[in-house]
């Protein structure tokens, strides 16, 4: 690409062709105020905070004006500053910007601009109309009275999430964020990825759970990785004291570039199964709390007869600890092997022209992979062939049942760069699928750390033994007379208590550090963000106790 020479505020600079004035100025270390602009989104030019002088005629939005050779740009003449102040006054005056009772006060880009420009009163009598508030969504609140119509939410929902739920309706001051076509949030096609909240610069879209629990400056932000599925997205966890306020996507993560799904952003924070906080033993139908020593004594006694079943949701270190202690009597509770091994990486999703998604609803699981596909399919940059892919069938004309797999494959073959995406496949289907020579294959491992089980050579087996030790967060078991069932688990659900004999509490989610192997085979480390409750045994404690049994 060619270079372009231009002058910004008298400074001679050279930048690549195709850059905007805003980007060029940034490179030159010159700051231009913005509001609707977002680094990860396409330029929109709605708010006019970034206006600059660039050649004859009206002031131009720096975020949406491309540099040309010999251009002379002025970014902060008194005239420009006055225009920006008027823009700010209009933005503040149009809707309800009484910060003192706004959740986003202290974390609002409009407010920051007000402070920066020394806005200390309203020039225009504010806000005569009452705009709708939508509280129906389980996790998100939309207050249109605080909206500045920057359209970041709609742009992120579409461009990054691929969900295309939000748009703007009406004109001028009557403009409103439109959910689907005049829908309420709760009834809409929203998949609760939370991107809209993450990009909203104001208090118009807020996280219900984190509301009023603390401001950004009162929270610590810890970068780590999501352990809810094998995509392993980069996350930013907002922690205040020993409490997780919210989870945001990490814009800098090479895996997900800021995008998250419901399972990563919201679900773990709404977990409400009762926690197990001490080892418990059932004798004669009565549960009694026991010490960890006592619990491991029981395990040691049963050791000879016991078989261990590990969930793939556990960190590598814990899997390893059980494997070292109990060797060849350690199995995976769930499937481990792919029906067809992966040949693709997430990068291959970026330029595929055809996606063949089989047997998995990417709106429900592996949501960020879903976003990577949907954001290219909906604007018709690529085709989606959905075979029993649940709600994904709603965005494609090519939706099939398993019995029509041959038609689906025929349709997929019309593409040049085809990526098949699947998790478990029913018998017969994988055989049909794997013979396609032109396809790339992206296997979505069954659980967050299935790949670690695979690396450790732990095979799947259906539990049949009399003495079983389960380890995981979603344990359920059948029980026959004479069985002895142990569960290392974070949760003591009534179902589990009705079948188990011994329960030992383990850490869960961001309570412990641990390694996860993503679907691409990358090792990522989940940090400890919060301290577990007293009595809960950490991976380290369990490992050292297992060594001694």
């Amino acid at each position: 690409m060619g270079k372009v020479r231009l002058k910004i505020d008298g400074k001679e600079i050279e930048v690549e062709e195709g850059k905007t004035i805003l980007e060029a100025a940034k490179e030159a270390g010159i700051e231009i105020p913005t509001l609707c602009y977002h680094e990860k989104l396409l330029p929109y030019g709605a708010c006019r905070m970034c206006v600059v002088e660039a050649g004859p005629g009206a002031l131009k939005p720096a975020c949406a004006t491309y540099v040309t050779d010999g251009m002379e740009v002025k970014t902060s003449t008194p005239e420009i500053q006055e225009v920006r102040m008027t823009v700010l006054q209009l933005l503040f005056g149009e809707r309800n910007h009484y910060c003192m009772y706004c959740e986003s006060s202290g974390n609002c880009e409009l407010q920051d601009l007000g402070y920066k420009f020394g806005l200390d009163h309203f020039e225009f009598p504010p806000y005569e109309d009452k705009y709708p508030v939508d509280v129906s969504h389980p996790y998100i609140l939309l207050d249109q009275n605080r909206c500045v119509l920057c359209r970041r939410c709609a742009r992120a929902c579409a461009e990054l999430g691929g969900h295309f739920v939000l748009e703007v309706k009406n004109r001028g001051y009557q403009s409103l964020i439109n959910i689907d076509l005049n829908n309420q949030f709760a009834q809409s096609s929203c998949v609760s990825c939370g991107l809209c909240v993450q990009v909203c610069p104001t208090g118009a879209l807020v996280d219900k759970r984190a509301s009023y629990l603390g401001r950004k400056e009162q929270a610590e932000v810890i970068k780590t990785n999501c352990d809810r599925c094998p995509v392993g997205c980069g996350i930013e966890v907002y922690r205040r004291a020993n409490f997780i306020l919210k989870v945001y996507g990490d814009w800098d993560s090479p895996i997900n570039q800021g995008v998250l799904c419901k399972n990563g952003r919201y679900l773990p924070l709404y977990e409400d199964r009762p926690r197990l906080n001490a080892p418990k033993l059932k004798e004669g139908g009565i549960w009694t709390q026991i010490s960890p020593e006592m619990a491991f004594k029981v395990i040691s006694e049963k050791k000879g007869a016991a078989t261990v079943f590990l969930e793939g949701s556990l960190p590598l270190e814990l899997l390893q600890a059980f494997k070292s202690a109990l060797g060849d009597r350690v199995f995976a509770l769930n499937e481990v092997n792919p029906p067809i091994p992966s040949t693709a990486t997430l990068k291959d999703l970026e330029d595929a022209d055809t996606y063949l998604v089989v047997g998995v609803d990417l709106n429900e699981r592996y949501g960020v992979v879903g976003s990577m596909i949907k954001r290219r399919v909906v604007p018709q940059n690529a085709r989606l062939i959905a075979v029993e892919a649940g709600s994904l069938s709603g965005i494609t004309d090519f939706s099939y049942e398993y019995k029509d797999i041959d038609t689906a494959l025929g349709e997929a073959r019309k593409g040049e760069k085809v990526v098949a995406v699947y998790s478990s496949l029913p018998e017969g289907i994988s055989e049909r699928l794997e013979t396609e020579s032109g396809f790339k294959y992206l296997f979505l491992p069954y659980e967050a750390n299935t790949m670690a089980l695979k690396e450790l050579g732990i095979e799947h087996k259906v539990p049949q033994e009399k003495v079983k030790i389960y380890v995981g967060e979603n344990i359920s078991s059948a029980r026959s007379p004479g069985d002895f069932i142990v569960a290392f688990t974070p949760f003591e659900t009534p179902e589990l208590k009705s079948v188990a004999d011994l329960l030992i509490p383990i850490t869960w989610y961001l309570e412990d550090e641990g390694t996860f192997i993503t679907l691409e085979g990358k090792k990522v480390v989940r940090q400890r963000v919060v301290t577990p409750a007293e009595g809960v045994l950490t991976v380290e404690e369990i490992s050292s106790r297992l060594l001694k049994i």
Partner: protein
Amino acid sequence: MKKITLASDWLEGCAGCHMSLLDMDERLVELINEGLVITATPITDLKVPAFGTDIGVLEGAVATDHHEEVAKLFRERCKILVALGDCAVFGGINTMRNYIPIEELLKRGYVNTESTVEGKIPQGPGIGKHLKKCMALNEVVKVDFYIPGCPPSADAIYKVLKDILEGKTPELKEELLKYD
């Protein structure tokens, strides 16, 4: 030493801004030693500013005909009028009532409140009548300086008064400029 007189009052506010004024603590004494004379305030017997008062400070939004009268009186009698706090500056939390019909609002407050027995809406010549809309001070009279904040910090109030005493144009920046 040149004396600078100050009068203050509150309109539809919570008195929090005046608390912040008192929060200046020993700096209030400092300002007085530098010539500030506090005349009519809500806690003095004298309630009305004298003609030619140098600084008038008003807290609270303009919500009733009484407030409007006080605002106009202050404007008429004070050389410099300062809007103190978010309610006076922007209208503030009081403006929430602009979206509820007045009758409904009064009923909710005085009659239908869960803890009220045989409530009635107070009426009489001493009680202000609600204006159609609750407003910021600058929607009713010209305001010279603004101290936003809910409440504004004692530091911000001190800065503005000190600047005026020293003959400078007050300007709030950075930590002193807050909307909450």
